């Protein structure tokens, strides 16, 4: 309850009683994230990644001589509140808006940022985000319309599956993945023999495993949040489900591996961003992150971290703090570790604001994620 | 002309126990019928059956010849039957005046007119009369809950009269009321009955009260009528004495 907590944010500000004091030599980049509610895990990871980057940058005196001022605003994982937060920070003329992560929240709030001509750096992965020709929205990770084809190809060529069972979590993340995956399967005429929806926070997966088992498909595509993935994997092992389990970062992440306590072994899939990537820069980052927040960061941590450095790179390129110029310059830009080491991996942003990077095919081998293949950037469309 | 209230072969049993056993009686217009009997003799059950609060197992109830067995209390009330309760039943948070207006409003106009019409449903006058009739004028604006027990009893009765009913069933009106207040209540009831030609049925323990008030008395024991007649006669009836002593 008490959800209007944040809705109320700065009614006072609205009333003009308190004006947010903006230090002269700082640049205002508010972060609007899922800090409580169902998205808290993603939100806090994303936040900590950004905090780490901001601390590093400010320690070196900021960029273009300005330090980053990054107030954190909670969306409570609700789109309505996310929209309010964006509306709120827009009253203070931000340079760039960071977040949110939940696609639903992004889709509602990005219109406002667009009207105000303020760039927005989002964590959402729903395909729709970059399909509304909004020149001010930029991703920090693959949209599902990029990651799903990669998985689909793997299912077809790697596993050589003729039929798949599909288990997904019924929120906007899971539903989006499920819809895109289904599309890709149909286009490769691979049959979907089971389509199982699960609840966020579900604990008992026996019914779902029974269904998947009964479908006896050549492969199972698992698209759940980390904890649910872990619970599913345990149940799957328990009932001796022995077909290849394919997934995304949320199935192969180190956290899932730890939580699943052994049940994750043999799981395969596509990983957009992972701290286990065979790239020194990434692993050093993972070290720093662990040291600073003492937990293993997931892909959202990397998204937040690299996102900040993306902004730094673009800004230094245009040489001024100008939101419009930023948006123009950021389209089609390629940031490579040569110029900005902390971008970790070379990345390109296309005309829609979609990001394009190398990604990986991974497999869990005795309790560790092993990268079996590096997938090159997609040909820039 | 037919009786105002006509009860024939009324029977109510809960599981094994038969609380009211084949009771029949009639009440003529303008009568004040008293129903007495030891505790658990089925007086209140009888009342609740007559008033539709309970559905009788068998038997029939007629109001002015019209069968009303099992009719909902509110519909019965619309036919001009109203009641008071053994345990106080008022609306403590409402003012005394609002209690009375409420008691009358459902007899004014239609559901719709009650929404769009005057907020007092044109009953302020009637309410004031009733209030002063029961000598509660000084309390008209007080919350009913703040009244003394006796005053609440008066209010309870006043509410029963508010809609000008033809038949009023009073369930132990004297219960827990001190003697002065009791005399006052009785005098008011008699006056009202005389003025309005109303018909009363009174359940009461308080013998004196019944003897003084009622024109006819009916004695209930173990769910059956064991005696009936003028107060004085009933009082001397050995069966009655037995019933009370035996109890």
């Amino acid at each position: 309850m008490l959800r209007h907590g944040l809705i109320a944010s700065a009614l006072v500000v609205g009333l003009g009683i308190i004006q947010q004091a903006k230090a002269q030599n700082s640049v205002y980049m508010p972060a609007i994230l899922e800090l409580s509610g169902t998205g808290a895990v993603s939100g806090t990871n994303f936040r900590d990644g950004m905090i780490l980057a901001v601390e590093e940058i400010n320690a070196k005196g900021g960029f273009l001589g300005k330090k980053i001022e990054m107030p954190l605003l909670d969306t409570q994982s609700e789109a309505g509140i996310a929209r309010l937060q964006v509306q709120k920070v827009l009253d203070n003329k931000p340079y760039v808006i960071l977040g949110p992560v939940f696609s639903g929240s992004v889709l509602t709030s990005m219109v406002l940022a667009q009207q105000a001509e303020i760039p927005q750096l989002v964590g959402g992965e729903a395909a729709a985000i970059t399909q509304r020709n909004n020149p001010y929205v930029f991703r920090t990770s693959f949209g599902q319309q990029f990651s799903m084809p990669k998985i689909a190809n793997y299912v077809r060529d790697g596993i050589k599956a003729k039929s798949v069972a599909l288990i997904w979590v019924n929120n906007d993340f899971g539903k989006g993945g499920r819809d895109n995956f289904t599309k890709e399967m149909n286009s490769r005429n691979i049959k979907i023999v089971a389509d199982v929806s699960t609840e966020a926070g579900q604990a008992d997966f026996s019914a779902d495993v029974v269904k998947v088992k009964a479908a006896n498909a050549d492969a199972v595509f698992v698209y759940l949040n980390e904890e649910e993935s872990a619970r599913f994997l345990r149940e799957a092992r328990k009932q001796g489900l022995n077909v290849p389990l394919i997934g995304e970062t949320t199935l192969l992440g180190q956290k899932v591996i730890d939580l699943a306590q052994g049940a994750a072994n043999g799981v395969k899939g596509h990983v957009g961003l992972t701290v286990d990537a065979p790239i020194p820069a990434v692993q050093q980052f993972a070290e720093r992150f662990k040291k600073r927040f003492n937990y293993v960061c997931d892909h959202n941590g990397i998204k937040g971290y690299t996102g900040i450095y993306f902004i730094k790179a673009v800004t230094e390129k245009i040489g001024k703090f100008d939101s419009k110029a930023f948006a123009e310059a950021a389209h089609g830009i390629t940031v490579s570790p040569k110029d900005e080491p902390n971008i970790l991996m070379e990345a390109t942003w296309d005309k829609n604001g979609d990001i394009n990077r190398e990604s990986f095919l991974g497999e869990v081998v005795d309790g560790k994620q092993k990268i079996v293949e590096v997938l090159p950037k997609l040909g820039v469309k | 002309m037919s009786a105002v209230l006509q009860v024939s072969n009324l029977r109510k049993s809960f599981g094994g126990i038969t609380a009211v056993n084949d009771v029949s009686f009639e009440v003529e217009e303008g009568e004040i019928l008293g129903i007495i009997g030891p505790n658990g003799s089925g007086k209140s059950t009888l009342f609740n059956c007559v008033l539709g609060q309970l559905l009788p197992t068998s038997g029939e109830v007629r109001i002015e010849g019209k069968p009303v067995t099992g009719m909902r209390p509110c519909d019965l009330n619309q036919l001009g039957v109203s009641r008071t309760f053994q345990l106080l039943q008022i609306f403590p948070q409402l003012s005394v005046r609002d209690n009375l207006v409420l008691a009358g409003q459902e007899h004014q106009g239609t559901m719709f007119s009650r929404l769009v019409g005057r907020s007092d449903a044109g009953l302020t006058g009637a309410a004031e009369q009733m209030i002063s009739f029961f000598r509660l004028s000084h309390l008209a604006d007080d919350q009913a809950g703040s009244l003394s027990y006796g005053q609440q009893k008066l209010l309870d009765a006043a509410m029963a009269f508010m809609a000008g009913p033809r038949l009023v069933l009073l369930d132990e009106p004297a219960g827990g009321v001190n003697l002065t207040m009791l005399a006052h209540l009785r005098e008011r009831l008699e006056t009202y009955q005389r003025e309005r030609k109303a018909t009363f049925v009174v359940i009461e323990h308080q013998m004196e009260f019944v003897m003084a008030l009622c024109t006819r008395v009916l004695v209930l024991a173990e769910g059956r009528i064991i005696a009936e007649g003028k107060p004085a006669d009933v009082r001397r009836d050995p069966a009655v004495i037995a019933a009370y002593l035996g109890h």
Partner: protein
Amino acid sequence: MNRLAAAAIVVATAFAIVVPFFLKPFGIYLLSLWAVLTIAAIGLNLTLGYAGQVSLAQGAFIGIGAYTTALLTQAGVPYALAFVAAGALSFAIGWLLGYPALRVQHHYLAFVTLAFTTLVFLVLRNEEWLTGGIYGISGIMRPVFFGWSTAKPLDFYFLCLGVLIALSLATWWMVRSPWGRAFVALRENPVRALSLGLDTRRYTLMVFAIGSSLGGLSGALFAPLVQFLEPASFGLNRSFDLLLMVIVGGSGYFFGPFVGALVSVLLPEWTRIAEGYYLLVYAALVMVLMPLCPAGVIGLLERVLKALNRRPGTAASARVVEQ
């Protein structure tokens, strides 16, 4: 006391009209939200505060109203019609939801309505063909009346305020009409009410239906305000929140919902100093405040005023007592 109340109303209304001119879009947005939620809270206060029928479904009715409006307007139906439809549909569903109240009371009723709310959420989420499912409905336009576009925050705020005032007056009329007295009777003593010729059955269904329709009408404004609907915004939390508004404002007091909605919107803001821990502080504050004024803010005020000059409460300001 009444003169005092009148004065307060005048001042408050003046504020509601003048203040937004000095606000930035966000402030105006919040005031609009306050107005919209107040309408729903007034409905709940009618069902819960006056008639004593516990309901945890008001949030669901905002959803029903909002989705009805969004779907109809996007199908080309004029907003005014959609607005009416939202109210009517909620009225009908509310009437049906009233039937359980004829059988069970108090906490059981709360459980039934709680279940109802969750069921509505599931339908909104799962029936994608109709409601857009988990993705929700976006791009909801703000209405235009005879050339007056409410697209701008200020215009839309005055639409909300106008509707709020109109509905408040209607409700005010109803609670001081015999109906209002009948509703209080349902709460205070249904048995006696029945014996006084009150058709408690009809009044119960009626109060549920009316309360719900106010929820629906609030939803009809909620949709164009947020311009995006997702099932999650109409889950249990919303209903709990409205319950909080009614209780904190003062259950059974006409102006309770106005204050309650304001508090529920402002309180977290006061805890803002606590930075990341604001929700923590907020929850703590609620737990501390509840015992201090269980009769809500207005209840507290009334006690104070009573202490000053002894005057009894009337039907319009009678408050719930759970026996």
